[in-house]
């Protein structure tokens, strides 16, 4: 038994189990096998990089592939919607009233009409995945109008997620923050109602949950192993 334990990488096993029991993974497989496989590999290699500081180039490559695949199918084409235009025009009057020529000049109106709507949309998309409830409660209690919310993880995984987040973010701060930043920035170009969800966060979520589970299970003696 001890030999078997030594042979099996329990970290990896827990990670694979976490992926296997997530509803999200099976939805990915059902809708887009290529993205599912890419994300699966990205999760594994991200885990290797975070724990063993190896395979960074593979992680970057897989991240880029995942991003390209996602942008192909989920790129947000609605950066400036018709509804927003109406509101923009009404606000044009308010800004002119309050700022006068400071606003009503070529630069001011260009920024207002062209730059600001795009920036606002980008911000909305980038922040959309930064919501715990999106992953564990189908966005409840702030379900998004016009979006098909779907289950990603059981809410019973939250304690593992929090434990993993708190541990990993203090131990591997730079790696986690860099990945988080890259995923958020790329997600800024993906529609928030993309049917596969915030896929670039998939590897990180699984890592946190798996690591949290490892911390809990390592307290139970038969699962004790060296980290």
């Amino acid at each position, binding site marked *: 038994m001890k030999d078997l334990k030594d042979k099996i990488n329990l970290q990896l096993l827990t990670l694979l189990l976490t992926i296997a029991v997530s509803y999200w993974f099976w939805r990915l497989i059902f809708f887009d096998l290529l993205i599912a496989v890419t994300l699966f590999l990205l999760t594994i290699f991200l885990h290797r990089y975070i724990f063993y500081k190896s395979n960074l180039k593979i992680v970057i490559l897989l991240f880029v592939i995942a991003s390209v695949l996602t942008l192909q199918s989920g790129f947000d084409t609605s950066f400036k919607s018709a509804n927003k235009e109406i509101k923009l025009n009404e606000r044009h009057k308010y*800004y002119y009233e309050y700022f006068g020529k400071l606003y009503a000049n070529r630069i001011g109106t260009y920024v207002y009409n062209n730059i600001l709507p795009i920036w606002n949309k980008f911000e909305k998309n980038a*922040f959309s995945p930064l*919501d715990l409830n999106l992953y*564990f409660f189908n966005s409840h*209690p702030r379900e998004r109008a016009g979006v098909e919310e779907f289950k990603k993880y059981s*809410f019973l995984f939250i304690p593992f997620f929090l434990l993993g987040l708190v541990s990993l*973010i*203090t131990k591997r701060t730079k790696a986690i923050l860099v990945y988080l930043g890259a995923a958020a920035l790329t997600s800024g170009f993906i529609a928030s109602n993309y049917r596969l969800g915030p896929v670039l966060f998939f590897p990180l979520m699984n890592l946190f949950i798996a690591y949290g589970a490892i911390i809990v299970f390592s307290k139970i003696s038969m699962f004790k192993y060296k980290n």
Partner: protein
Amino acid sequence: MDVKKIVLLFLVIITATFLRFYQLDEIPSGLNIDESSMGYNAYSLSVTGKDRYGEAFPILFRSSGSFQAPIYTYLAVIPVKLFDASVFSVRFVSAISGIVIVLTTFLFVFLGVNRNFQQAALAAFFVAISPWSVLFTRVGTEAAPGLALFSIGALLCILSLKRSMFLIPGMAMLGLATHAYYSERLISIFFLAGFIFIFRKTILSLNYRKTLILGLLLFFIILIPHLMILNTGALTRRLNQVNYWNDQSFNQNSGYLKSYPFGKTVYVVREFSSQYFAYFSPKNLFFEPDPHGERSIPDLSTFYSWMFIPFIFGFITVLKRRSEPFIKILLLTVLIAPIAAALTTDPFHTIRVLVFLWAITLVITLGLSEIFNKLAKKLFKYSLGLILLFISLLSLYISYFVLLNKERGVFDYAYTKVLDKTEEFPDKKFIVDSSRQLGAGIRYAFYKKYNPHELQQKLGANIANNYYSNFEIEESYDLGNIESKAIEWENDIYKDQILIGDNLAISEGQIKEHKLGQVFTISDRSGKVVLWGYLTHPKDKCLSEKEGHLNKKCDKWL
């Protein structure tokens, strides 16, 4: 403390004061129902010593059955006496609370983090300019003094770790906070319990025993008024209205859990978890504001979106330094503050978590300090600081002073304008449909400074000895030439008066059928017509009826 530091602190206070008092009576426009209620009660107290129902020294203010915490109303008597009953005097207590919160934040961080002046000033400044702080200290809300009292209590508790004598006033302040707002009833108790537990080696030591016992005694004495009305239902009335563990909510929202054993327990745990964690969501904190228009600023969330980055760094800092006493208190506050709000169905209800938002502001401050410490070049640091300051203040000005002013008529600006119309038609009675505007009546009572003795007789008659227990009494505000109620189509059209309502209150069909004639419209601040005033023509109405001569209401007209 050198001159530069004094000047810096002075600038922070000036900024806080300006942001809270500038156009305080105009933005937001009008008074919301809670402000009107507290304002009129304060006015009634200042004139008669009793609230609008004729109750002397209420433990909770009945306020149409919502039972408002008392501290705000009692404090509001002072500005109402000084400045007369006005929008400014109603909001004055909130604005002052906002400045107190900024000052206590400075002291809390300064004394908690090894007298680090820079960090303390930064924390105070962030509290001064954060959207949540500006929004909720410019509107009359019990939550503002609630946070002020809590923050003073927390400050005194942290001081008590060095000198035990501060424990008594600290506990007293926490006890008073429970009388300021609903959330603080739980937050103060949890905070106190958590504080004693975390620092039990100090607090339970021999040196502290006397002050601890005296402090707890004082805390419980201050809580006695709550216990006096515990069985009436008034204390828990608000929670009963908004909780999710009742059978109706379970049956409607539990889905498949209905058919499982312990399904209700799982449902409640799941619901609580989802509500609780919603407050920690970066999306909600930094991007998507509170869904309710009265509790948010257009295009601005509770914090500026750039604050997400220092928030992450602050979160990491808090985790790494969690053994420090100040960080322990901060962590305790962050974890317990959303509990009260998470017991309710309203998603991300910001006004219920001001203590939490205050604590998050301190986390953001720690994060920004950490970022600045990592930046070597002073010029880059100051440039970055100035850019962030400029962006923040510009966003605040645009979103709050321009857009909120123009786009949000949420405090019923139009309904307030009805009072101007009563002067144009002095011989007519105005019936204002209040089906969707429950606060219209009390708002008019406040603006007209309606005689409190008369209103006490009208409203108090229905209450009798059931001030804290009878919840379902219908209140009508008949204030002479203006009355706020649901339009009674069987009666009101037979009187010579003006009916006022929104587009849902009076339909085209009703206008034709009841021979109504439009006499005016009232627009909101953006210029959109939201209210219509119709003059009744009872004689024409009676003549149009087939059996009008048999209708007793037509006797006067035919």
